[in-house]
């Protein structure tokens, strides 16, 4: 179907295991389910696959009220009723009132598209079950117009989940699965390189040090993630903080500069301050 392979892009560093999983999903035209800590680039992955393989990207952001049917199509009965009142000619064809959903749009593309179903765990617990046939056979039936919509090209479907709800087995069986691990220091350096190529080496070293130290702090409610690190680096650059400030002993004894970008929870900041206090006492 495709001889192109996804190998990451100039903006996105993909690890070997992620690439393997994505390429398997692309080749077989099956959905891939991505899980991982918040901020590890799950949603971005779909955008980058689209960019890397040069495919159109369609997005379906799922909310707690989203119904599976909305991904296929909706019948806008109210509009039809209104048109009938106004004597509009369109009213005679029901097809005029079928509003296509993202899945339908994806099925109609001439090139194999990338469809992102974002945060599937936000929806109702039965939501994934309602999409089984659609994702499996890549077709569905429109009752109003009695037609069956079949995908011209099986789209590359990327599904992300934050693990707020468990997904049903029947659904999982139809997907490839990949869990994005939190990157280790080496991968992290690559990621930062991709985003801020001109970052001074020492500053980066110190910042990464401070960052991983912070992640090691026991009991943090929300550990800072990659996207937070990138934000923080941006701030450090903007403020022109020197590496010396980040380095040295005082890292253990004071909050890192601009910590607001990394710690997003007042309990965490509080915990961190307490630990610093303990450290200071020990140091004396």
């Amino acid at each position: 179907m495709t001889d192109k392979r996804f190998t990451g892009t100039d903006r996105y560093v993909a690890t070997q295991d992620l690439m393997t999983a994505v390429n398997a999903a692309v080749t077989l035209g099956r959905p891939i389910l991505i899980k991982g800590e918040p901020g590890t680039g799950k949603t971005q992955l779909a955008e980058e696959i689209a960019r890397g393989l040069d495919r159109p990207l369609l997005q379906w952001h799922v909310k707690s009220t989203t119904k599976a049917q909305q991904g296929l199509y909706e019948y806008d009965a109210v509009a039809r009723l209104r048109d009938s009142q106004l004597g509009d000619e369109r009213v005679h064809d029901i097809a005029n009132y079928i509003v296509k959903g993202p899945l339908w749009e994806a099925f109609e593309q001439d090139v194999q598209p990338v469809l992102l179903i974002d945060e599937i765990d936000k929806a109702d617990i039965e939501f994934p079950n309602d999409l089984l046939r659609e994702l499996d056979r890549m077709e569905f039936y429109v009752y109003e117009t009695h037609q069956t919509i079949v995908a011209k090209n099986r789209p590359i479907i990327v599904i992300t989940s934050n693990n707020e709800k468990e997904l049903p087995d029947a659904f999982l069986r139809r997907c490839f699965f990949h869990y994005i691990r939190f990157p280790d220091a080496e991968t992290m350096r690559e990621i930062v390189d991709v985003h801020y190529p001109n970052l001074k080496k020492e500053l980066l070293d110190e910042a990464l040090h401070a960052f991983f130290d912070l992640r090691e702090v026991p009991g943090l409610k929300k550990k800072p993630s990659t996207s937070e690190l990138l934000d923080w680096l941006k701030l450090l650059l903007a403020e022109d903080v020197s590496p010396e400030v980040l380095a040295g002993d005082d890292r253990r004894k004071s909050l890192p500069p601009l910590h607001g970008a990394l710690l997003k929870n007042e309990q965490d900041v509080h915990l961190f301050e307490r630990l610093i206090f303990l450290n200071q006492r020990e140091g004396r």
Partner: protein
Amino acid sequence: MLIRFFFMLREGGLKVSLTEFLTLLEVLHSRIAGYSVDEFYYLSRACLVKDESLYDRFDRVFSEHFKGVQDLFGDETAEIPEDWLRRHFERLMSEEEKALVESLGGWEELMETLRKRLEEQEKRHEGGNKWIGTGGTSPFGAHGYNPEGIRMGQDGSRHRRAVKVWDKREFRNLDDTVELGTRNLKVALRRLRRFAREGAADELDLPDTIESTARNAGLLDIKMVPERHNAVKVLLFLDAGGSMDDHVRVCEELFSAARGEFKHLEYFYFHNCVYEGVWKDNLRRHSERTPLMDVLHKYSSDYKLILVGDATMSPYEIHYPGGSVEHWNEEAGAAWMKRLLDTYPKAIWLNPEPVNRWEYTPSIRMMSELMAERMYPLTVSGLEEGMRSLR
């Protein structure tokens, strides 16, 4: 060769289905993977394992089947994450206890002892590499050391050693063998659903609109209805503390499932048995109590009452005034239980203790009698049964 791998995975406790296995073969057939073992490992993992908490189990089977290199539990002890240990103390210890620890030789020493103990324990039970029981006479036992409730944090970057990926078993800390997931609980709680339309009419009632419009000779007549939602009201009483420590996890799951499922959910905590006061916040249980009488008057009798507790206590705590372990109670727990049950005829008690232990604990029998035998085990089937009796 792969057929054997497939069956080994199933024996290893991974519910790999035939379709998933066929998918793997299809992927292999399509030659997208190179011929390296690493790539095969990633591929088969993406095809066959759908939950990161099972990655570790997969790694073990993979390593066994493909005869990795080292034995499985080679450097187990080296990788007990220190922050995990420390976090326990952070969570579980009060200031005095911390002081006590200092007197025992400080953190470092204590960690050392604990680590040794973990090591010993690992040698004794194979596979029991995560569970540390309460340590009996050890200094750890005193703190109700209970690892079940905690999910270990992602371990920091390990130095890249010359070990195969699957032998590193990096996902070890995600493995949890909880049978009762939130999903199961939610599905069970759903049995209690009662949909009703109440409140402001803000949704278009399509069938009614169409009918009224037709009756109106084609002139549009829009009908609105209130949104449909779950109208069941639930009053949840949770036993907190003491012997319930062993059941923290399952209770947390029940609580989060209930919160997601019921719009009208009120919860209170009690200790062992319900007395004149209950509380909403375990940290301020002594300062902010709600008199039970207020609860009885505030929430109408159409609330369904769910009590969660192990009912494991001294019989005095139920039948005698002053029997409570925490305070002086003027009236016996049984009297308060009776008032509660009189107000809320629809009531059940969920007990996380295994059923086979019930008959050996007198207080469980007594409580069950008080509940008119409406005591159910806190398992999926028990919950379903309970929900049926609540309807």
